[in-house]
């Protein structure tokens, strides 16, 4: 039987930033597979490399960042050898992104209508009138009231939740196969966050879209993603389906994250993860998590743990994963 082709295959990606202070290894050997139609989660804190991974796949890494190694395949095609012109044709109809902050991702000097119709007419070869109609439909679809009026509005005239809906509408305007949602609700209030997450779920179902949900919030992961990749300091710590990751985590960082995050559902004693997020110019030796890991042994300081399979679809990069009994949540 032939294996179904992956939609996106990132392997051993290395994206470094060449700053004056030194080389920041923002993404250092990250591999992520995405199947057609699924939602995967990339979870991590600031500096974990989750956003840079998405930027690399879209080839929009800001300077002084550069992809220095690894491969990125989309529908079997190698994205790293494509010209900028070819990439531009892919962005929009094939891959799109919703960023965290709609205030900076929308252009303040153009109306909502112009920002939508420009993209639509560029990629879909429609006349101005048709593009206008299409823009109207997509605004309706993301739940914007009075879409005719909003087409003429400038971003500053809209609330945060509305702006994020416009940003989603823009990303979806060419019906992409793959959507990167990079902390799409972090700046929004919880009730608005609920609306937007609900909208994303619904749109994904209707359009059969594949989604990469990038977030620091384990709650959003539990709610949205089928599979999860946990990143820390530019490296993959653990990969598993969501239920397994929460109930039988195999990496101490995953366990620590689950125990350090307060939950609205219960009051619990919080286990503190000591220390700070490491400096990526001089990352810790061996396992990047060892200075903060309560199970760290000598080997963890010396050798980088390889990523190993513990069961079907469950991979972990920890020297001690086999012997440790870690605690999960909500089994």
């Amino acid at each position: 039987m032939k294996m179904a082709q992956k939609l996106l295959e990132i392997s051993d990606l290395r994206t470094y930033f060449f700053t004056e202070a030194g080389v920041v290894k923002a993404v250092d050997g990250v591999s992520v597979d995405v199947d057609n139609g699924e939602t995967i989660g990339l979870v991590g804190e600031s500096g974990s490399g989750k956003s840079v991974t998405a930027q690399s796949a879209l080839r929009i890494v800001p300077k002084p960042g550069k992809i220095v190694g690894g491969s990125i395949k989309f529908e079997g095609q190698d994205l790293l050898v494509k010209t900028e012109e070819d990439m531009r044709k892919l962005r929009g109809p094939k891959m799109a992104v919703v960023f965290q902050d709609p205030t900076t991702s929308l252009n303040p000097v153009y109306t909502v209508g112009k920002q939508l119709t420009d993209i639509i007419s560029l990629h879909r070869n429609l006349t101005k009138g048709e593009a206008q109609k299409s823009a109207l439909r997509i605004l309706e679809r993301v739940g914007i009231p009075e879409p005719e009026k909003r087409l003429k509005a400038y971003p500053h005239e809209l609330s945060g939740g509305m702006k994020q809906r416009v940003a989603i509408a823009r990303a979806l305007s060419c019906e992409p196969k793959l959507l990167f949602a990079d902390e799409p609700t972090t700046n929004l209030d919880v009730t608005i966050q609920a609306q937007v997450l609900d909208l994303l779920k619904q749109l994904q179902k209707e359009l059969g879209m594949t989604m990469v949900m990038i977030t620091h919030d384990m709650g959003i992961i539990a709610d949205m993603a089928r599979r999860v990749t946990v990143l820390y300091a530019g490296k993959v710590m653990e990969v598993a389906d969501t239920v397994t990751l929460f109930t039988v985590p195999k990496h101490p960082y995953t366990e620590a994250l689950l125990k350090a995050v307060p939950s609205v559902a219960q009051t619990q004693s919080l286990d503190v993860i000591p220390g700070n997020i490491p400096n990526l110019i001089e990352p810790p030796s061996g396992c990047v998590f060892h200075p903060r890991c309560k199970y760290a042994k000598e080997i963890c300081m010396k050798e980088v743990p390889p990523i190993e399979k513990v069961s079907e679809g469950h991979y972990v990069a920890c020297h001690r994963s086999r012997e440790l009994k870690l605690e999960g949540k909500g089994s």
Partner: protein
Amino acid sequence: MEPLLVVKSLVKHFDLLERGIIRRRKVGEVHAVDGISFEIMPGETLGLVGESGCGKTTTGKVILHLEDPTGGSVMFGGVDVFQVFGKGGNNEDAKKLRRTMQMVFQNPYNSLDPRMTVYDIISEAFIIHRHIPKTRWKDRVYELLRMVNLEEYHAERYPHEFSGGQRQRIAIARALAVDPRFMILDEPVSSLDVSIRAQILNLLIELQQKQHLSYLYISHDLSSVRQISQRVAVMYLGEVVELAETESLYDKPLHPYTQALISAVPVPDVGRKTMRIILPGEVPSPINPPKACRFHPRCPYATDICRQEPPNLEDRLARGHYVACWHADKFV
């Protein structure tokens, strides 16, 4: 036990001004805080939650008289705060009161002066209040740094040399420098990474027990509020809609807004699937808040009475669970 802080019918309206030819004229009012009341006991943490624009930060600022109140009163340990800090107040009394009430802000990146060392930042309070002799300053700064789990050598450094979590520790040490009895914590962990939040929350809880502090913990993050507060007040458009013991509020919310708010928070747990209540629309403008019950345009249970008369915040079940909703008995 007497409450330490009593806030009564606190009102803060901001004038909306329009530039005219000669002078600016008032064209409206933002109803930031509209008649809220609560008490905080010694050693207690009251959580104040709500979404952006609900007036929670303004409430904190008005209590400390960082903003002029429009109406209402705040009593702190039997002292009328607005009178002491107001126009007719005595400067010495104001200083004394200032020492007892402190604030920690959300963003430790702009609440610390980048040109001062940590030592200067913390000891500035000693210069102003002169409550300890100069010979003891150094020891006291070191002691404060240890209290927030920093090291003595950190005193000579500048804020930019620290991470977000460490900066927030410095901000806490600065607040503690005057031996306050009460601290207003305005989103103290919101700008921090998730693995750092627990460190700061646990530190705040530990300091409270050691120093017998009272906190007003202001946040939009319902999870951290649950973690730290004994009682919680929920604000919507300038009003408190529900106030109860933490467990009671989270496990049996009686106001439809609180129910929606709690259900909207994604739970980091795959074992429990709860139904999300999705509220239609967005929070209306506080310039022209809806009449009667301010939540009625978005409330799934609204009836005629909700559109006609504002509900009072009442202990409808006589068990210390206050709610401002005409239909609260439905949800018991």
